[in-house]
């Protein structure tokens, strides 16, 4: 209101110069953006609140079949008597397994690939690879999903799943090749270009003279690079990992294509079967329930899932920020792009 009043006054006597007005407008825009974003967070948590209140902490626990619970929740919308009973553990476990698996594998692989690319690869190969990596980093996830569902899933079904395995679990889950293994594999291919491109940027930014100093002291090339460049580029390693983890955590489309449609918690005690068991994560659940938004209890349940995802991703950026704090004395590399 105050701003508007001052504008009315403006016509008579310019209380604000053009410059100050511009600053006010920009400030208002920025405040608007921040308020809108924060309001969104509040809205999502508020919409999910009924589901949390009805279930308490057992929302995060296991118990019963998650798909049957979701069906009951969706149907209860029409009957007028809302049902909220929901145990999300299988979905949380699946999200954790796929994300952690893919991030761990692709971190190790990406680090070595980045080191190779920056220091050891022949120059023509570097020139060729760099644009390819950037292209792969921006390939839409649905294309990875397509490759997964048309190439990897049939491969797993035909070569890794025996009839005996299939019959042993028939009453519980279908083994169609849509599996944890396929999900982790495709997710790894999806996020490692992102990691590699940020790692490479960080490693490139390390001053050449630091490496030369190390080599001049008689340390061999591998050890110099590993102990000087990789250590200096730690902020970039963290940025890349956080960004890639956020991608993996929120990936819905690709995982719902290759991970299967069954809400099931793969059990490591099953031995080899563990890898080919289907599982559906939190994000994929929201996507696959998109016909049921009309049912109020379902809506609240899905918003509760969304709130958990949002909270995890906020915590992820926060921990990335916290981890980078002690490294402030290093220059900040790989902060802004991608």
């Amino acid at each position: 209101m105050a701003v508007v009043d001052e504008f009315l006054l403006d016509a008579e006597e310019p209380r604000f110069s053009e410059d100050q007005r511009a600053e006010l407008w920009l400030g208002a825009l920025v405040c608007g953006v921040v308020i809108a974003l924060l309001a969104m967070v509040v809205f999502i948590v508020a919409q999910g609140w009924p589901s949390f209140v009805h279930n308490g902490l057992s929302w995060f626990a296991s118990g019963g079949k998650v798909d049957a619970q979701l069906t009951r929740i969706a149907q209860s919308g029409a009957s007028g008597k809302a049902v909220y009973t929901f145990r999300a553990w299988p979905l949380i476990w699946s999200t954790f397994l796929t994300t952690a698996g893919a991030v761990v594998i692709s971190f190790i692989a990406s680090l070595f690939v980045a080191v190779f690319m920056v220091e050891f690869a022949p120059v023509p190969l570097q020139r060729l690879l760099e644009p390819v990596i950037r292209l792969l980093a921006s390939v839409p996830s649905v294309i990875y999903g397509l490759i997964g569902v048309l190439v990897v899933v049939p491969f797993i079904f035909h070569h890794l799943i025996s009839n005996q395995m299939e019959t042993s679990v028939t009453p519980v889950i279908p083994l169609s090749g849509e599996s944890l293994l396929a999900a982790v594999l495709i997710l790894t291919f999806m996020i490692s270009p992102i990691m590699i491109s940020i790692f490479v940027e960080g490693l490139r930014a390390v001053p050449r003279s630091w490496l030369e100093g190390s080599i001049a002291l008689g340390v061999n090339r591998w050890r110099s690079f590993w102990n000087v460049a990789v250590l200096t580029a730690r902020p970039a390693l963290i940025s890349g990992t956080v960004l890639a983890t956020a991608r993996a955590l929120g990936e819905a489309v690709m995982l719902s294509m290759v991970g299967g449609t069954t809400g099931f918690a793969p059990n490591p005690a099953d031995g080899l079967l563990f890898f080919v068991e289907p599982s559906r994560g939190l994000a994929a659940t929201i996507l696959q329930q998109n016909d049921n938004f009309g049912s109020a209890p379902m809506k609240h349940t899905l918003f509760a899932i969304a709130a958990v995802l949002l909270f995890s991703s906020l915590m992820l950026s926060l921990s990335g920020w916290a981890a980078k704090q002690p490294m402030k004395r290093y220059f900040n590399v790989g902060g802004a792009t991608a």
Partner: protein
Amino acid sequence: MSATGAPIHLPADAPAWRLRDRLGLAFAWLTGLLFCAVCAAIVVFLVVQGVRYLRPDMLWTNPKVGFNQNETGGFLAEIIGTVLVTGTALVIAVPVGVGVAVWLTEYGRPRGLARVVESTVEMFAGAPSIVLALFGVIVFQAPFLAFLSATTQGHAYGKSFFAAGAILSLLALPIVVANVREGLRAIPDHVREASYALGKTKITTIRRVLLPAARPSVITGTMIGAGHVIGDTAIIVLLLGDTYTLQAVGHIPLLGALRGTDSTLTSFIYANAPTGDLNQPQKAYAAAVVLLAMVFLLNIVVDISGRKARELKWT
């Protein structure tokens, strides 16, 4: 001979690389070459499959009902949808993003507010798109936003180009902000001071000196943002309606289309994968190669503008 004149000579039994170092180097080569092979496999596979199934007429026919994959038309409506929805998202994200970035670098007072803005925008860079999509589904069904989509008996449908574009702009916003900020920060202070010395006000300096100088960064941010927007599927599936052709609402040309529903290339691929509703893998491959070509073009623009930004040397 070294500078001091003392000869440098390695002892005859100069220590060979330790086993650990040799293993590390070997592993780096191995993963590096493996990665090259996988890259090549993915790119070659997609291009081969795409070229096998892509027919030129798919680019200018709409999807239609047919008995087999030769009769079901192409994906003109999806290409238009991709362009329209990306345009809508960028029209929102770029001005807002540039505004936020300018405020953060050039004003940024009070300091506390600036830190809040910075961290909020940065945190949203990692927000899962499915969460944003779910938020959009509920918000755009609200009565006061009903004019943005089709309405049936007073109920807002909530799915339209406006809805999808508005939510997608949230994906592009942090990227635009980060890139424009970086571009503005790279401009040394004496450029600003020179402008002030000529009697220009701060806002004129920003508009006439700083933003033109930072143009390559603005373009880079916009194009990287566009890449993310084009590639997103979850928001499109939830917010653009499930029609495979452009269904305009009302008769005003562009506005009607923007209020209407459609699919994009990503949601078309999703629907045409074996897990989707249409299940026509050949069409999915063809659409994937078109989408890949779009992403490739965007990448080239990013490369060119990035090179321009680096060529701008301030002294």
